Structure formats: structure tokens, C-alpha cells
């Protein structure tokens, strides 16, 4: 019989904590009830509440048990799916007594319920797949032993640099012999712009997706690496423009400006063009993103505050969704070529212009078209393990192509045409997923990449992002980033010190430089990046080895 009040005594339509991805472990004996954890929780998954306890007490020399009702204050996890614990652990961070911590619940049924209101689950972050990626299974097995001396990473001269830009085939070089010496005969020949860069770059993350101190910290770190450390690291703006002052500064040369389907920020960029004192490092035309193929960029309304609205040239507090594709795109032969040419022309053909696509089975078709286009400066392929500030969970988890085989087949396609040195390939998506930044980068380089782009790794390493492949935190889309990385809320982003971020960026890249040398030295490579040196790689799976055209070792 139904209770008259509508109250169901069996709680049948309530969720138990077992359905939730993270369960809060709270220790009554340690908690001093300061309230810091409940105050800091970005999703209000825990709350201070009052419980009545029945306690049986006995005092005196002989047992005289008596029940008493005791009122206690506790910290309790709510069972509302809209306020699920994301496992970020900010509560643990602020707790003075180590009384609270979220614990992953592998039996959770989170995705069964996270579709309230008929909309799919949206989040930020990366693909939730903690398994070892192909990149982390690749090993470097061609060690210089006895037949040739291994090089010394500390003593020999190393040149860990790559080229970004279209490179002329040797047969087309405008060279002529004058008195036994080669000279350049520039008449009527277009020599495409080429930049020498460090092979690891910071991938596209926009102002807007990132908080002001985060973007600023990255930018300062990159400028320091270039100006002081002599490490030519470049960074991509993402879609959302750049600060007007930076556009007019001498530091612009360290930045790749992205143009994507929403053209956000380009009004400001176009107006800054006549005042630029340096050319940008390159222009990236975003056609796709590995984390959410087929989706355009998305900046949720809650992140569109005054500064962002100004830079992007839009009203405040509106969802900024870039279309899935460029509206002008008719075909790769026509529209993409035109877009590459227009962007080249806007910068006087002095700046490399390249497209970025999401990893896809059709990447080779794109590649081959670009190979025929003399203005295409590179191709960036973003694999399924790439991250994003906001997307549907289903896109992130299930859409996309792993980067390793996609990059490899593209490289080998260029090899077949003899164009592997003409069109650099930039690989992205999941580099440093398990922390092995240099090893993953080196593996991709040896599979054929000229460079790699990182995003999540630098957020984790430089700004302590909580995110992982167990769906920890991943609140980037909500503007409630507890670390202040992906938020526009000053209360949150003031937690992040841009100087500290910059310092960490410098440390990360310097360490990666050392580690790359430590990898290349035993393989006897130091002068040029071992692009496509596939004989140096092995994997412990015969099918993977065959697919990648490398050795199988076990």
C-alpha cells in the first residue's frame, strides 16, 4: 500500500552511494568540524549535517545500560546525481586532519544516470580509459652497443630541434653554382617560411577555456624558455584570440595563432595586424579535435565573463559554440586550399599555415591533398586521447582514432611519395598520459612525427590539474575548476599563481629536453631529430608491430 503522504518508505527511487563514481570516506574521529571541506567542494557533493544517534551508555561500577539520544554534526555525501562527487580531492587538500578523502568506486553506475533532463553527460577532460596506450607500450630497443659507440647525453653536442613549415624538396631548391659555390637564386621562387622549434609544443588551449593566470603562466613560461633558456618552445593560442598587448608585442613570435570555425578573437587579431612587430610562429586552422571529433569548440556561458567577451568580441554569459565545421568549407580541394592561402596572404606569406584535424581513418586523404598544396605548412593530427574543455562524454570516450597508427600510416604515405621531409606531421593526443612525456614524444617522432603537442600533461604538471582517466574532477566545462585552471571565476582562479605555473613550464621543458637526449644518445642519434627512425622501436604485440611497421620484441 502506498503511503498517504507520497513518502516511499522503501526509498526505491533513490540512488545508493554505490552507484556513484566516488564515495567519500569521512572519519568521524579525526574531523574537527571546521567546515573547510564542505566550503571548498566545487559540486557541493558533501554537506554538513546533523544526525541523531542512539547510544547505549553505562556508567558506574555495575552495568547500568541506558539508551541516550545524541545529536552529532557530521559531513555527509549527498546522493543527488547532479551533485555527484567528482573525486577531485579538494576536500582532502584543505582538511587539516586528513579526515576526508574520496575513493573511486569501480562498480559505479554513473553513466546509467547521468542524463537528466534528456541531455547527454557533458564534461571536460580526456577519454576515460586508464589502460596503457600504444605510446606507452613502445620501447626503444636499438641500442648502440660495441658496433658503434653510444653517444653521451651529457658530453656530446645534441640538437633536439624540429622544423615547422613547408620544406622544399632538394630538387626544387633555387640554387645555382657561382665560382664553385652554391648561391640562392630567389627570382620568381616562393621559399616557404620554416621555423626551427623544440619538438614538443603546447597545444591549443584558449583564453576562455583556461583562466587568465593559467594562460598567462603558460605564456610566460614559453617566453622564458625562448628568451633565457634558448629552448624554442612554441604554444598555440587555441580558438579565442589573444590579448591585444601580446599581439602587438615582440613575444608574438613564440605563439601559434589558431583560427577555428567560430572565428572567435579574430576581429581583434585582424585589427592588430598592422601593429604587429613580429610575425606569429604559425597559424593553425582547426578543423577537428581528437577529444571530440565532429564537434566544434564549446565555451559554456558561465565562463564567458567580461574579459573573455571582450577578447572574443561577443556578449557576456552566452554559450559560445563553434560550428562543427567551417561554414565556408565546400571541399578540401577548393575551400581548405583557399583558407590556407588567405591566411598565408594575411601574413605576407611569411608565416607557416597548417591545418589541425582529429585523428581519423580518412587522415591520409587530407594529407595527400595537403601534400599537393605547396602552401600547406604541416598537418597536425590530434588523436583520441586528446583533451577538451567541454564535450559530450560519448564523444570523448568513444569517438576518435588512436594517434600511433594514424600518424604512422600518414608518415609512410609521405615516404611512398618521397615527401616525408616536405610536410611535417605534428602528433597530439595522449602524449604524457602516464607521465612519460619525453618517451611518448620520442616514440611518435620515431614513428614519423616532426613534433608533438601537449595539453593535459602541461595542465597536470604545471598547474596540478586533478583530472585523470577515472573521470576524476573533469569539471572544466562548468567553470568550477577547483585548481583555478579552467575557470573564469576570480574566486577560483586567484588560487593559481601564474608565476608558479611559468616556473613549472620551464622545469617541465628543460627536463623533457634532458630526457630526450637520454633516449636519443644510446641510439646513437644527436644531430638531427630521428624522425621516422622506426628500426629503433619495438612493441610487445605482433599485430601492433606489423601495423606500425616496427619490430616485435618480447
Amino acid at each position: 500500500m502506498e503511503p498517504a503522504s507520497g513518502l516511499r518508505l522503501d526509498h526505491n527511487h533513490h540512488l545508493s552511494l554505490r552507484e556513484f563514481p566516488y564515495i567519500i570516506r569521512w572519519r568521524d574521529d579525526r574531523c574537527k568540524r571546521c567546515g573547510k571541506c564542505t566550503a571548498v567542494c566545487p559540486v557541493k557533493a558533501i554537506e554538513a549535517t546533523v544526525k541523531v544517534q542512539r547510544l547505549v551508555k553505562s556508567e558506574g561500577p555495575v552495568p547500568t545500560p541506558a539508551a541516550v539520544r545524541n545529536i552529532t554534526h557530521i559531513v555527509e555525501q549527498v546522493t543527488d546525481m547532479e551533485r555527484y562527487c567528482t573525486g577531485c580531492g579538494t576536500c582532502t587538500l584543505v582538511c587539516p586532519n586528513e579526515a576526508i578523502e574520496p575513493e573511486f568506486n569501480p562498480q559505479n553506475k554513473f553513466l546509467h544516470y547521468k542524463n537528466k533532463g534528456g541531455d547527454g553527460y557533458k564534461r571536460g577532460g580526456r577519454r576515460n580509459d586508464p589502460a596503457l596506450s600504444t605510446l606507452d607500450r613502445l620501447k626503444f630497443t636499438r641500442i648502440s652497443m660495441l658496433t658503434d659507440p653510444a653517444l653521451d647525453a651529457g658530453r656530446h653536442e645534441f640538437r633536439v630541434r624540429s622544423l615547422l613549415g613547408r620544406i622544399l624538396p632538394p630538387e626544387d631548391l633555387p640554387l645555382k653554382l657561382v665560382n664553385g659555390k652554391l648561391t640562392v637564386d630567389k627570382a620568381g621562387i616562393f621559399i616557404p617560411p620554416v621555423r626551427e622549434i623544440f619538438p614538443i609544443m603546447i597545444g591549443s588551449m584558449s583564453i576562455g577555456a583556461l583562466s587568465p593566470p593559467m594562460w598567462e603562466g603558460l605564456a610566460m613560461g614559453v617566453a622564458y624558455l625562448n628568451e633565457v633558456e634558448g629552448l624554442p618552445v612554441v604554444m598555440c593560442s587555441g580558438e579565442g584570440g589573444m590579448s591585444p598587448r601580446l599581439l602587438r608585442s615582440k613575444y608574438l613570435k613564440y605563439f601559434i595563432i589558431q583560427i577555428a570555425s567560430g572565428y572567435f578573437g579574430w576581429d581583434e587579431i585582424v585589427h592588430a595586424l598592422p601593429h604587429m612587430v613580429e610575425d606569429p610562429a604559425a597559424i593553425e586552422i582547426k578543423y577537428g579535435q581528437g577529444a571530440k571529433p565532429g564537434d566544434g569548440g564549446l565555451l559554456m556561458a558561465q565562463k564567458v565573463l567580461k574579459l573573455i567577451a571582450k577578447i572574443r568580441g561577443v556578449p557576456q554569459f552566452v554559450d559560445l559554440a563553434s560550428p562543427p565545421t567551417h561554414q565556408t568549407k565546400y571541399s578540401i580541394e577548393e575551400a581548405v586550399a583557399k583558407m590556407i592561402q588567405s591566411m598565408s596572404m594575411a601574413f605576407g606569406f611569411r608565416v607557416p599555415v597548417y591545418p589541425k584535424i582529429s585523428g581519423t581513418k580518412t587522415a591520409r586523404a587530407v594529407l595527400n591533398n595537403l601534400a599537393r598544396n605547396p602552401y600547406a605548412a604541416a598537418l597536425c593530427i590530434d588523436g583520441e586521447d586528446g583533451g577538451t574543455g567541454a564535450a559530450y562524454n560519448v564523444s570523448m570516450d568513444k569517438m576518435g582514432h588512436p594517434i600511433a597508427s594514424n600518424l604512422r600510416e600518414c608518415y609512410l604515405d609521405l615516404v611512398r611519395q618521397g615527401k616525408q621531409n616536405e610536410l611535417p606531421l605534428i602528433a597530439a593526443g595522449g602524449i604524457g598520459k602516464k607521465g612519460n612525456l619525453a618517451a611518448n614524444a620520442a616514440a611518435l617522432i620515431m614513428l614519423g612525427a616532426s613534433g608533438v603537442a601537449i595539453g593535459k600533461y602541461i595542465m597536470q604538471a604545471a598547474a596540478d590539474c586533478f583530472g585523470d582517466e577515472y573521470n576524476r574532477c573533469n569539471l572544466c566545462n562548468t567553470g568550477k575548476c577547483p585548481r583555478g585552471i579552467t575557470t573564469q571565476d576570480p574566486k577560483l582562479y586567484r588560487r593559481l599563481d601564474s608565476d608558479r605555473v611559468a616556473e613549472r613550464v620551464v622545469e617541465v621543458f628543460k627536463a623533457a629536453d634532458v630526457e630526450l637526449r637520454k633516449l636519443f644518445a644510446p641510439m646513437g642519434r644527436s644531430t638531427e631529430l630521428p624522425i621516422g627512425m622506426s628500426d629503433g622501436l619495438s612493441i610487445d604485440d605482433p599485430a601492433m608491430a606489423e601495423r606500425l611497421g616496427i619490430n616485435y620484441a618480447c
Partner: protein
Amino acid sequence: MEPILALETMKEGHDGSGLGLTLKNLGGEFEKLKKYPVLSGICSKKGKKTLDDFMKKQGFKLKYEWTPKIKPIKGIHARDHYFARAYDYPASHKNKSIVEKEELLMKTRLAIRKIGEPDESIFAFSFYPDVITIKEVGDPLETAEFFGLDRDGLKAKIVLAQGRQNTNYAIYLYACHPFFIQGYCSMTNGENTAFVPIREFLMGRGFPGYTGYNSDSEVFTHILHYTTRQLGFPITYYKDVITPLKASEMEGRQDREALGLMKQSLRPLCIDGPNMVIGFTPDGTCFMVQDAKKLRPGVVGGVKGKYALMSEECGVDSAIPKRESAKDIFPMKYDMVIISPDAQEVKVWNQLQG
């Protein structure tokens, strides 16, 4: 025989696993046959018939054949037929330019290789005027005796001799130095760690001769051919291709702008060593060059008209004892030693000066 005796003195530096010889500017019987291409190789009885039929079909007429007087040596497995045959060009090519003739010779050599390689019935090492190549597996000195080189009148002004098979790849005659293509020849001391990207780049040049690669050192010959013949660069640019200068070092070079572009476009041909390369070009220029860290030895010494380019000093002592050894040249990382045709002049070209 001299170069082989010199190899013997350097025995500690090689494993004596094979002998490869390329002879240029031939004397003896071949002196009068300088304009005719010489096909050098090995074949079985069956292969000989196939080869004869094939050459006939292509229109080549046999002018002269040299075969070594084999002296059986324990440990060297004698094959049926070793040969160096001078042919006359087919009528269709007699009056063609040297470039067209070179193309025909190379394509013919590759075709023979393709026919004979699956069952190892024919090996063709070189097919070019005034050049002979001999290769066999075994101790160099014994192999030379086996071929009767100590008794034979086979003479040449330029001799490239290598005393070992390759190290990291299977022992196979096509993997044995020196390597030859269209008048360009080289042999290498050391291993090439950048082999795979270089091989892939060369194979992508659309030139049919860039094939084989049973040894990582074969690419050095092909880079030489590509740089000087295909791209038309003077020989010193070979050094700039395999060991490009740093941007700051280029500043001192008059041709720095060209070097900058070359460094980008020829990036995959950059080597990391450890290598020392000795080679010659069609005009008879010989050279020695080192990797950018000079990780392998190399010495040049001699007298006017006779120079020895060797891995080790003791080899030069054996070949040319009567010389002023204080004037021996030990090329360092920026150097390229160039000996003009007929060994008239030795020049040390420095990459920093250009």
C-alpha cells in the same frame, strides 16, 4: 695486391670476414677497353647461361672476359664463375650521351640483379666503363690468394679495398663494401645509426638505382651520387649534406644562405656516425670524410702520384713506406681530404671556411 697487404696489417681493426675490391682506371688487358662498360659479378653455371642469354637479348656484345685463376683455399667456398666482362654497347646506344649510357648500364645491372638474386645464381656488382668489382666472403688475404690477385696482372690506379663484411646485417655479398653506382663508389668504416630514415628518403627520390640496402653503408654511396650527380653540387657539399654545420657555424661561410636551405631540404640525409667514408667519383677524385664527431679513425698519406687513404696508420706504412710520415693527414670533424685525379694533389677542405 698492395691494398690487401695493407688490410692485413690493419687486421686488428676488422674481423676478416670478407673482401671487397673496386678497381678504377684499369691497366693490363682492360687498358685498351676503357670505353667499354665492364660487368663485374659472380654466377653459377645456370646463371651464366641466363646471363649470356639476357645480355645478348639486350644487344650487348662481349668484347673481353677476365676470370680469376682460382686457387682453392680452405674455408672459402668457391662459386662457379667469377667474371669481369667488357661489353660493347647495343647499337641503339652507341651514339647516345654518357648520361643515357649510364642509365642503360644501371638498369641492366639492376635487371640482372633482379633475375639472379632469388636463387643467388647471379650477382652483379658493377657495370660501368673502366671499373671492376670483386667480392667474396672470407679472410681478405686468403681471398686475394684465392682469386690469384698476387699472380694476376689485374692492374688499376684506384683501388678501394675493404676487409670485412658488414657488421649489423646478414653476411651477404650485396652487403659487402665497396658500393658502386654510376661511377660513384664508397666504403665506410663504422655504423650508420640514421640508416632507416636515410634509406626511406633515398628510395623516395624516384631513382631506380637507389635500391638494395643490404648494408647500412650503401646509403653513403647513394648520398654521394645524389648530391653530386643528381643535384649537381660540387663534391665538398657532400660533407655539408651528411654533417651539416650549426647555424652559428654557417655564418662564416660565403654560401650560408644556400647551406641553410640545403640543411632543411636534405635533413633526412644527415648522419650521426660513427663513420669514416672513403670514396671516388667518376673523374677519379678520391676523398675521405668523417662524421661530425670524428668517432672513427682515418689517415691519408703518400707521395705525389700515390696516396693511401686508410683507417689506420699501419696500413699506410705498409702501402707507402717511403713517404714523409710526418706529413700524413688525419682529417678532423670539419675536414674533407680530396685527392685530385691521378693523385697529383692533396687538399684538405675545411667545412668552416668553405
